[in-house]
């Protein structure tokens, strides 16, 4: 089999339509007779809903109705939404109702919904709905929330502690008691939102003839969404079709099933007309899930040679008011700290606190950036205290490639022991350092300092559990036209899923990439599906594409051999034809074979012949696929303004066998931009009462083209032995070690002043405050 597709920089099949304005996002889908919805949302972080007066809204021309919880069809009228990832550690498994019934626990929570002829009228009417609230005391800061005296996030709960759990192995107390050195750090980290440029969006339409309810949603997980919706409506799964058409970015928050995704279909059923809701950006700031504050108190014990003996500490995680995805981010965070290092003893106690804020769920990286930041800050501290080079400290502690597979001693979020399948961490760091000219940096720094410029360098290493189960499926079917239909439950929000899967199928089936007809993100196309999160689709759907492609290849060869009268071993598949290698090399097209595979009505198929040329594979991974990497950031800090410019950014990335370097490089570069946002800019702020303070792109800053340099990216390929592709995930890694590398670089740049940073985002104000506290300005002005 030639390598013409797999591993090549194949240009994306998605691009021509998206470049010419022919993409089809949810709001581009127009159905006749569509009504438009706008939600009435709570202005209070904690309140009791007393009464709703819809009369002023109903009086407006063009308004079709105002609906509260009791007006909704099906079980969702009374039942809260299900928790997708339960965990026995959760003491308060709170999830929300699709429309509030009594108590409201965060600003923006859905209270009622207005349906009107246009979005403009619906927004007018939503503002005219009068809601009587009894305000309750709220808690906005997770550190306050865990105090006995704190107001309760939910008034009936005895405590705001939603869950506690300990991850541990080894004799932590013993190693800390006898270590040559112990260093402690207090760390604050904030992640912000996913902030896809397309907001959330839902359109629903019920066809009374077929009784089919069709829902278009800007979601990462249409199959999961259909399941949730079926439960909330009390409707058969087969009577719901959920479609994720073109989706304008996901980054985690669109993996969640939201109240609006249940209410809009419910209204379409109730009203007998299509209903559409397009979230605005302010709603996205209020109601799309975020990842938010984590406070870490961590300590590292090392011997006299800087070898790690143990890590221990406490992690406090702000979960917001509900737990739609359980506690997976703090769990992943607590399991990711050891990373690429040998850590003989380990213990992290995690407290998950409820607060009166929108729930937190995974955002690109999902707990891993925080864990990596904690570990890398500790190692930088060790290097500083022992006066060793930062790269050298890491080198002394790396897990060596000959130790693979390496069992860390914890259980990962997939429920399986945390066992790194493969990887060469020292080679990854060496590659990144060479590319970054790390050895020449101290000379660059000295020269810059002579000119009064402050430049610094920082390193971030990580290991990331990707490719999580339970499964993803791919159907491959040869059509009578000669084209090859591919359907998958995997979805695309920009990752190039169509192209990647088409490459794999084309390679194994022996057709042209252009002859593949791909359906992604449509529950009607394949029975089972999971969707996009945890950098899982190349591993899961990619492996299924390989398995289904190989099965159909076998069917094509068997049928062609019989028809052409040759040995199966003498049949080649190329560009949509089966060609015999013997005789006068007769051939037959895939289209003709597909027709033959349908058989003749009433006539038995030959022995061994399957019906049609078709196979569905559901690859089920035995455990996570552990990718890894090293980032090196070189920055310049303006000591007067606190402004940070990233001069150079280098990535060495191991995502196993690379299917399409064009796409993987794009994923890494995009992830780095997200990491830069986390390190320097993005901060979703609330006051002490849980009122959001940053609800526009003027207040909450995303990285711009002038903030993100073009990275130098090196691929270090260690083949994953556990899946047939040898692949590991690539979607999130770019976002994970950025804050660690960037904050370390800022600290290094300002080392003449001895300032220390252990927080993200590190804004200019905070840099200036630290310099002022260190007496830097007296020295600078005296100089």
């Amino acid at each position: 089999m030639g390598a013409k597709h797999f591993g090549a920089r194949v240009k994306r099949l998605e691009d021509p339509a998206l470049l010419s304005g022919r993409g089809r996002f949810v709001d581009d889908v127009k159905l006749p007779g569509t009504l438009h919805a706008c939600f009435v949302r709570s202005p209070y972080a904690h309140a009791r809903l007393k009464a709703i007066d819809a009369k002023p809204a109903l009086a407006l021309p063009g308004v079709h109705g105002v609906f509260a919880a009791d007006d909704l069809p099906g079980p969702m009228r009374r039942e809260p939404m299900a928790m997708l990832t339960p965990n026995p550690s959760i003491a308060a498994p709170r999830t929300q109702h699709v429309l509030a019934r009594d108590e409201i626990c965060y600003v923006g929570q859905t209270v009622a919904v207005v349906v009107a002829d246009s979005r403009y009228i619906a927004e007018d009417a939503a503002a005219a709905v009068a809601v009587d609230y009894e305000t309750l005391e709220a808690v906005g800061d997770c550190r306050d929330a865990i105090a006995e005296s704190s107001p309760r996030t939910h008034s009936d709960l005895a405590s705001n502690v939603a869950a506690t759990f300990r991850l541990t192995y080894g004799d932590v107390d013993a190693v800390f008691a006898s270590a040559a050195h112990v260093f402690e750090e207090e760390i604050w980290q904030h992640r912000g939102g996913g902030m896809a440029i397309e907001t959330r969006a839902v359109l629903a339409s019920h066809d009374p003839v077929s009784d089919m309810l069709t829902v278009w949603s800007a979601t990462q997980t249409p199959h999961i969404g259909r399941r949730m919706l079926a439960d909330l409506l009390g409707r058969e799964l087969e009577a719901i079709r959920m479609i994720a058409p073109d989706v304008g970015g996901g980054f985690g928050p669109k993996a969640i099933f939201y109240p609006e995704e249940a209410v809009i279909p419910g209204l379409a059923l109730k009203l007998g007309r299509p209903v559409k809701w397009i979230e605005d950006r302010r709603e996205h700031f209020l109601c799309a899930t975020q990842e938010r504050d984590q406070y870490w108190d961590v300590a590292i014990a090392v011997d006299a040679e800087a070898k790690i003996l143990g890590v221990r500490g406490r992690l406090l995680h702000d979960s917001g008011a509900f737990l739609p995805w359980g506690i997976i981010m703090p769990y992943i965070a607590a399991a990711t700290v050891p990373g690429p290092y040998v850590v003989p003893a380990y213990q992290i106690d995690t407290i998950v606190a409820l607060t009166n804020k929108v729930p937190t769920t995974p955002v690109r990286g999902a707990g891993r950036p925080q864990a990596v930041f904690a570990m890398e800050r500790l190692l930088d501290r060790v290097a500083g205290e022992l006066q060793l080079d930062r790269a050298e400290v890491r080198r002394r502690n790396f897990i060596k490639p000959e130790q693979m597979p390496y069992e860390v001693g914890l259980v990962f979020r997939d429920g399986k022991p945390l066992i790194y399948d493969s990887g060469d961490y020292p080679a990854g760091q060496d590659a990144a350092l060479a590319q970054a000219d790390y050895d020449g940096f101290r000379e660059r720094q000295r020269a810059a300092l002579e000119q009064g410029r402050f430049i610094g360098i920082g390193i971030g290493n990580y290991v990331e559990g990707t490719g999580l189960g339970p499964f993803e499926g791919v159907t491959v079917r040869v059509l009578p036209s000669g084209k090859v239909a591919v359907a998958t439950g995997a979805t695309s929000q920009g990752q190039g899923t169509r192209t990647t899967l088409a490459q794999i199928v084309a390679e194994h089936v022996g057709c042209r990439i252009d002859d593949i007809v791909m359906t992604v993100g449509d529950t009607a196309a394949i029975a089972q599906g999971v969707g996009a999160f945890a950098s899982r689709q190349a591993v899961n759907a990619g492996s299924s594409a390989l398995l289904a492609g190989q099965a159909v290849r076998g069917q094509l060869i068997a049928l062609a051999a019989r028809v052409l009268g040759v040995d199966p071993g003498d049949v080649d598949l190329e560009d949509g034809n089966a060609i015999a290698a013997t005789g006068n090399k007769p051939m037959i097209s895939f289209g003709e074979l597909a027709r033959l595979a349908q058989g003749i009505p009433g006539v038995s198929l030959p022995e061994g012949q399957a019906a049609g040329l078709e196979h569905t594979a559901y690859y089920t991974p035995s455990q996570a696929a552990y990718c890894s990497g090293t980032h090196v950031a070189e920055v310049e800090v303006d000591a007067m303004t606190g402004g940070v410019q990233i001069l150079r950014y280098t990535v060495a990335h191991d995502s196993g066998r690379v299917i399409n370097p064009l796409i993987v490089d794009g994923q890494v570069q995009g992830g780095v931009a997200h990491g830069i946002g986390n390190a320097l800019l993005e901060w979703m702020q609330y006051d002490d009462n849980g009122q959001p303070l940053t609800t526009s792109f003027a207040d909450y800053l995303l990285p711009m083209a002038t903030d993100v340099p073009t990275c130098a990216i090196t691929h270090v390929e260690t083949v994953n032995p556990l899946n047939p592709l040898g692949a590991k995930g690539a979607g999130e890694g770019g976002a994970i070690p950025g804050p660690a590398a960037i904050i370390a670089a800022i600290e290094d740049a300002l080392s003449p002043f001895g300032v220390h940073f252990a927080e993200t985002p590190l804004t200019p104000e905070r840099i200036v405050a630290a310099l002022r506290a260190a007496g830097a300005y007296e020295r600078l002005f005296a100089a």
Partner: protein
Amino acid sequence: MAKQPTRVIVNGKAHARIVESRLTLADFLRHELGLTGTHLGCEHGVCGACTVLVDGRTARSCLMFAVQAHGCEVTTVEGLTPDGALSPLQQAFMDNHGLQCGFCTPGILVTLTELLRENPHPTEQDVREALTGNLCRCTGYAGIVKAALDAAQRMRETREP
């Protein structure tokens, strides 16, 4: 709601409609004319996804009413696209992986169309500064910048053979 007659030339074609005064130009293009290539990402003038050309200059169609475009010529991403083909700028985006989800892309293509018209020899810094009015969450901008510089070169080569 007050309505006003509005005549706009969009992508070379004249349209006359009576629209609500408060209808944004973006919603007019998307929902009255069916030109859904123009996208709305923030509706408060920061993300730039809705950028179109109004009389040849970039404008935020979310911050403009349709009636304000009365008598103007508007160009959207559909108008930048040759029949059945891609423009040199669009082709450069495909070749250099200048897009991922594609949602911000139409606004970025419009912004760069203005830049390359006014400055056929942009530096990387020129491109980056021109792009500060457009947010992209997927790409980290590298492919976009590369595509813009590549397109500038291709367009120079066609102009100056």
